[in-house]
């Protein structure tokens, strides 16, 4: 049975994630209007926002510890927040700053936080094999750590995903695969790319449990993920979960969604997992004042990390040559100049932790 404490934690993570995305919209558009220019403004590059996905990140990650590994895809912010990634340094990374999680070398699709074993990457299903590897390491070391690979429903046709299901199953590895089904792979609706409407059915082909949660409901995700994570921790192998979520924004900022029926956009906005969880909390006796308090705290935190990030310096140009290798070759100077420096110390960056 879920505790009210867990429900509150999930709610706080979800409202933090939602407000974070809404505030990033404002920040991202600075300097990019009226004529949209992707390379202008304080946040460079693409930005894939996850508003409408919050229940999945919160409902899964509430069961995870820092030593559990999470890999996330290109739409990662809500998962990172739920996994406890350093939000200040994550935000600085998104702004391309020197004190960002990756010193400005990754950006919003490539966030790495070793303190909580989090990584995300920009190519579809790419994080699945490394999650399997993290689980393999946990099993070899006889720890009860687990790994969770998040992916979108557009990734379930990728070889890397299917190969990972197989390798995880045949070696009974402690992995949970979480498919976030937001109905859209950029402009491609699910029914035009696969005949299998329930992505969790993919598990059948690998003799592993597959569970679909149809309702964008944090409580339901909590229950299913809790079982899957426990199964993995107990050494009973992998599970595939598909969660219905909703894409409340475009594929990326700047996507006019000309391909998407208005009714679908409206429907996505009506099905709000955050409102649903608020109802659950009220039914557990949590008052509106308490919910307001949680929301205010989340908003303050988001404002604080964004202001902090914006004050951070940009990387020095010469840092482009650092970190190619952990042990740079001694003669790097004659080797194209790359990686001439000593391995990085990520210590003094002033983030959350």
């Amino acid at each position, binding site marked *: 049975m879920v505790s009210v404490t867990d429900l509150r934690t999930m709610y706080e993570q979800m409202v933090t994630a939602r407000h974070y995305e809404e505030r990033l919209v404002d920040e991202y558009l600075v300097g990019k209007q009226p004529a949209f220019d992707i390379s202008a403004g304080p946040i460079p590059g693409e930005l894939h926002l996850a508003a409408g996905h919050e229940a999945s990140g919160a409902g899964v990650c509430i069961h995870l510890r820092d030593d559990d590994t999470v890999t996330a895809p290109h739409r990662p912010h809500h998962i990172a927040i739920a996994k406890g990634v350093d939000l200040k340094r994550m935000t600085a990374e998104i702004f391309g700053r020197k004190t960002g999680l990756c010193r400005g070398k990754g950006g919003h699709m490539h966030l790495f936080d070793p303190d909580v074993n989090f990584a995300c990457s920009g190519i579809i299903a790419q994080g699945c094999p490394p999650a*399997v590897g993290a689980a393999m390491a946990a099993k070899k070391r006889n720890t009860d750590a687990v790994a969770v690979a998040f992916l979108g429903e557009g990734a379930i046709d990728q070889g890397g995903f299917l190969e990972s299901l197989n390798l995880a199953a045949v070696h009974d590895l402690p992995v949970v695969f979480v498919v976030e089904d937001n109905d859209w792979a950029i402009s491609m609706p699910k029914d035009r790319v696969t005949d299998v409407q329930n992505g969790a059915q993919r598990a059948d082909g690998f003799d592993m449990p597959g569970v679909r949660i149809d309702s964008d409901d944090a409580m339901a995700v909590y229950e299913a993920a809790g079982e899957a994570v426990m199964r993995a921790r107990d050494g009973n192998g992998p599970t595939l979960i598909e969660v219905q979520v909703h894409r409340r924004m475009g594929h990326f900022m700047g996507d006019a969604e000309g391909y998407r029926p208005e009714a679908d956009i409206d429907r996505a906005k009506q099905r709000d997992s955050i409102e649903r969880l608020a109802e659950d909390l009220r039914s557990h006796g949590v008052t509106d004042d308490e919910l307001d308090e949680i929301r205010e705290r989340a908003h303050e935190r988001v404002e604080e990390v964004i202001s902090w990030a914006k004050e951070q310096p940009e990387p020095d140009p010469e840092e482009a040559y650092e970190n190619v290798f952990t042990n740079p070759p001694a003669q790097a100077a004659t080797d194209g100049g790359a990686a001439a420096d000593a391995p990085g110390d990520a210590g003094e960056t002033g983030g959350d932790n």
Partner: protein
Amino acid sequence: MATESRDYTEATETDRELTMSRAMVEAIAWEMRENEEVFYMGEDVADYGGIFSSTTGLLDEFGRDRVMDVPISETAYLGAAVGAAQAGMRPIAELMFVDFFGVAMDQIYNNMAKNTYMSGGSFSVPMVLTTAVGGTYNDAGQHSQTLYGTFAHLPGMKVVVPSTAYDAKGLMHSAIRDDDPVVYMFHKRLMGLGWMPSPPGPKTGVPKEDYTIPFGEADVKRPGDDVTVVTLGLHVHRAMEAAEQLDDDGIDAEVIDLRTLVPLDTETVLDSVRKTGKLLVVDEDYQSFGVTGEIVARAAEGALDDLSAVKRLAIPDVPIPYARSLEDEVNPGTDDIAAAVRELHE
């Protein structure tokens, strides 16, 4: 723990001669005994012992947990090696033929090679990707490539190409202990397989104890004053044979084995070119946009005034053909090397 790099001549004086495959396996076994975080996975590496004998005997000593046969699923298991390495283990993952890279290159060059950089150095990927390379046994275009240049071109991977048993062992110790991803490319023809006889040369004296060979140190296999021959892998031995023929004609060729492409020992090449003024680069990879062009470019950047003539021999931009007459035509042979050196010497 590690001993210093040894002089090649000293090593050849040891009584015990090993094939390249035995030397490579000896280093892997030593590291696995010393460090429980080291494990090997690949296709047919356990019971079979590796199609090219890269893991012979390891299963018996270390068991299936540490010598893992995996599904034919390179994306999954090479990517899993990345994940295990990022978790701090030291996986060795074998890509049976380098030609198979196409089915798993995303994990290799986007994750394995880039995650250290893209994480700003907060993650390391201490893994070794072992892979068999090369032709000369008529296996055609999908099983005969070396692709040296492809891997050396993409930043973030150290690339190692041993040509002797002594180097194979020392470079393997270095590769496993390195905190970065190392692509260890072993030439099938050099492994000492009963069913694919090696030329004389790769079987060398090998010390029993462990030793490392630092990356980025080319080996001058034969000093000479007239023409510099820079090469790697199988063609080190072809170049040495050519040099002996040329010596009979009074042409003194210097033969340099690069041993590692990343990092590349530019200085040894430049020192030689400054002495001879004439450079031949021999490679079993495709000619255009590859190793030969890179070496010539570095020689031109660093010693242009000393250079009077340059030639290169490589696969002439065709896929590797099947029939003997066709493959022999495109893969630089000893006579081709000798002829090219003579031309440079004129």
